[in-house]
């Protein structure tokens, strides 16, 4: 059924599409879960809606409340839509080195943006938001990095959708940010698919983003449980951009840059399966489409030029 009472009700049930040209063989296949087909165009609609509805059920959110969240983009955009429809105010704390499209979308939805310094990336946004929350006890910080409803949204929806569409799944690959996607889907699949491999792809940014004052200011999301993963890859901008363009060239899929990083890790799994002569059905998450990143220059010129333009930006 493709008729829904409202935009919020149309969440999820995204297509899983095969990649016949990028898959190495009929025995080793790649499948993309197109999460850009969600209400605001990213996988973050699932945790955002789940976190708001959980807070409503818990009595934390009542009409007119102000919601606060540290976010580098997609979670903020999802929350902005949900808050608009449900009548909450939203304040997003966002690092200044994020794309202009994300800011414009947030403003259009009526969210207020507080900017955190570029150096330190999202770590700084988290720190600023925690301080704001302490100063304004009446604001509700959903806190995607530690909110169990984030991972639960994927355990309850994305995981079951993937298994229903691809019961022969052998590998699952997704991006690692809040870790909610990998924790939720990873746990769901582990309980039902013996031997399934859960693989994380983490964006490796330019030096500015790692410019913390002290190594102890490092940040590991409270949701993270390393036991859910089998391996974790750090993917730099050149590899992410190359794969993003390959997705367009060979499969016609216009994805965001973080999806390129995820595909890079998925192709490494495919290569291992081919070399060991094993059958594989590798499902990965297409986190969003490329529209919000056009201004970064990621889709113009050579890979080297594009990578240079991404230096210092939060591209995932």
């Amino acid at each position, binding site marked *: 059924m493709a008729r829904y009472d409202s935009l919020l009700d149309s969440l999820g049930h995204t297509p899983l599409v095969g990649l016949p040209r990028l898959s190495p063989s009929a025995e080793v296949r790649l499948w993309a879960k197109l999460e850009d087909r969600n209400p605001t165009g990213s996988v973050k609609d699932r945790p955002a809606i789940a976190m708001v509805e959980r807070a409503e059920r818990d009595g934390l959110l009542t009409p007119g409340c102000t919601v606060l969240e540290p976010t580098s983009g997609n979670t903020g955009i999802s929350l902005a839509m949900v808050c608009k429809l449900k009548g909450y105010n939203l304040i997003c704390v966002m690092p200044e080195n994020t794309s202009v499209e994300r800011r414009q979308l947030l403003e259009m939805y009526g969210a207020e943006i507080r900017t955190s310094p570029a150096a330190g990336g999202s770590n700084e946004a*988290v720190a600023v938001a925690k301080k704001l929350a302490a100063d304004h006890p009446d604001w509700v910080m959903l806190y995607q990095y530690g909110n169990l409803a984030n991972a639960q949204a994927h355990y309850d929806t994305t995981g079951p959708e993937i298994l229903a569409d691809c019961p022969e799944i052998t590998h699952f690959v997704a991006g690692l940010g*809040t870790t909610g996607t990998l924790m939720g889907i990873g746990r769901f699949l582990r309980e039902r698919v013996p031997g399934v491999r859960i693989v994380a792809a983490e964006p*490796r940014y330019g030096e500015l983003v790692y410019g913390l004052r*002290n*190594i102890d200011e*490092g*940040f590991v999301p409270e949701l993270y449980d390393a036991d859910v993963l089998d391996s*974790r*890859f750090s993917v730099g901008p050149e590899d992410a951009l190359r794969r993003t363009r390959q997705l367009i060239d060979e499969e016609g899929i216009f994805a965001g840059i973080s999806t390129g990083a995820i595909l890079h890790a998925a192709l490494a799994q495919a290569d291992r399966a081919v070399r060991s002569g094993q059958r594989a059905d590798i499902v990965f998450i297409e986190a969003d489409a490329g529209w919000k990143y056009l201004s970064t220059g990621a889709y113009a010129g050579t890979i080297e030029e594009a990578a240079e333009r991404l230096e210092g930006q939060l591209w995932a």
Partner: protein
Amino acid sequence: MAIEARIPTILRTYTAGEKAVEGNGLTLAEFFVDLDSRHAGLRDRLVGEDGSLNRFVNVYLNDEDVRFLGGPETPLSDGDVVTILPAVAGG
């Protein structure tokens, strides 16, 4: 041939500002000891007294997180690249 370590900005005080330094070792643990012999104090920032990686430090061997390989006992070979990064948030 040797093994290359990529050093994050925050730890370059130990490498005289160098972004990358070289060293040797059959395992990651040995490699850190070798690096520390020329860049005193670096090892203490990476591993605890028991040799396990500090919580907010991520170490990648040719782009793969060593915590999922063999941790400090991960074997290394000539030509490997070890990338050290502080843990950062996403989302």
